[in-house]
């Protein structure tokens, strides 16, 4: 793997938008957590012209952290499945969102929207939330507190590790990785019941 590229938000968001697929990135600066229920509210508020923040050049992190234990800046945090947010993503990229952070594969519509709006999808690793929490400097709820774990939280990251999983040309890391590492022969050869 190549050395990671350090990106400081918001100053270097235009660089982030242009990074090629597969680039390892250490992300610093503010991002906003948003998962299922957050998206419902955010898109409704956006359509009504009362969004709680200006989404232009922002980064959305598909995450619902645990509460912070006493004396810690943030709780355990990691990505949730990005595919569940696919239905809303083209709308949010059109509103100016520069990047989304999550795990897992995305729809064709999200690939197309990344190309159309010059946005990227960043993948990080699920199930390592204690480690990723050490890359969060602060967390502050900015909207939808009543949603509990699904509130919109402004999170200040510090060298948070991600990979460019879909770039602004629509190239996909998950597809490329599978193509590279799949066994050369069909592992289910002989199966006739699919």
């Amino acid at each position, binding site marked *: 793997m190549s050395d990671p590229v350090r990106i400081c938000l918001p100053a270097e968001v235009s660089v982030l938008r242009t990074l090629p697929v597969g680039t390892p990135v250490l992300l610093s600066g503010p991002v906003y957590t948003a998962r299922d229920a957050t998206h419902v509210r955010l898109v409704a508020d956006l359509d009504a012209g009362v969004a709680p923040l200006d989404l232009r050049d922002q980064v959305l992190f598909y995450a619902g952290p645990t509460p912070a234990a006493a004396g810690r800046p943030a709780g*355990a945090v990691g990505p949730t499945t990005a595919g569940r947010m696919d239905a809303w993503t083209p709308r949010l990229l059109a509103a100016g969102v520069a990047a989304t952070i999550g795990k897992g594969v995305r729809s064709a519509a999200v690939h197309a929207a990344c190309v159309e709006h010059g946005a990227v999808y960043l993948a990080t690793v699920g199930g390592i939330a204690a*480690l990723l929490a050490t890359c969060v400097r602060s967390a502050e709820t900015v909207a939808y507190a009543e949603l509990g774990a699904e509130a919109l939280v402004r999170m200040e990251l510090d060298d948070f590790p991600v990979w460019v999983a879909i770039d602004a040309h629509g190239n996909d890391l998950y597809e490329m990785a599978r193509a590279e590492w799949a066994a050369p022969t069909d592992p289910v050869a002989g199966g006739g019941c699919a």
Partner: protein
Amino acid sequence: MLTVHDIAEAVRAAIAEAATTLRPDVARAMADAATSEPSGAGREVLSRIVENASIAARDGVPLCQDTGTVWVWVELGADECLGGGLGTAIDAAVRDAYRTGALRMSVMRDALFERVNTGDNTPAFVDVTVRPGIGATVHVMLKGGGSDNASRLAMLEPAAGVEGVVSFVVDAVSAKGSSACPPLIVGVGVGGTFDSVGKLAKKALLRPVGSPAVSPAAAELEARLLTAVNGLGIGPGGLGGRTTALAVHVLSAPCHIASLPVAVNMGCSALRSVSVELT
């Protein structure tokens, strides 16, 4: 004789342990994979998973922010007489463990008609089965939404046979494996009825990774499935490699002459369960 309080206390302690401690069998398999995985990105992901487990254990921080729904399976000795109130006592234990441990509340009041967080991670999902003798085994699993969502169930026709089961399992991992936080432990249930085959797949996840299968035939199928799944190339974190799963566990059961039920319950890289013997 056991009381509902004994079982609730076991659940409370198990939640605290499971949320912050990688299962020892999973940790061993993960460390082995971190040396054998040929993909550089894959090895990097595996080493982060190993590092995450040590930070979580050291600092008492959850392994994963999705601290799950709570599944409790009590295998109760038939000679025990618990009396009433088991469900209430278990829910009280869940409420206490989630608040005390600063775990995430992830339960909706109703899936469709009242999608509001209950705020205390109750209700727990409880099964009680009866076995001979005294005492009880209490299994507690904190099940993440991402891996449960990636799970599948089908009522195959008996003619599909072993090949049909293999195709079903491999297709399930191929379609959803990258979202389920690989490397996975793949629980496969075969047989029973429509409602019980999913439980069979979940119970398969309780078996320690590296322990023997229930029969030579199951062991042979597990080995075949593991090779096929790891041939998909999904790899650790979905970033490519040969360790898409650490293990495939198969549990089979009797079934109707017309049926071949099969279910896949995905266990994520932070598979969290604790099994406690009470006497």
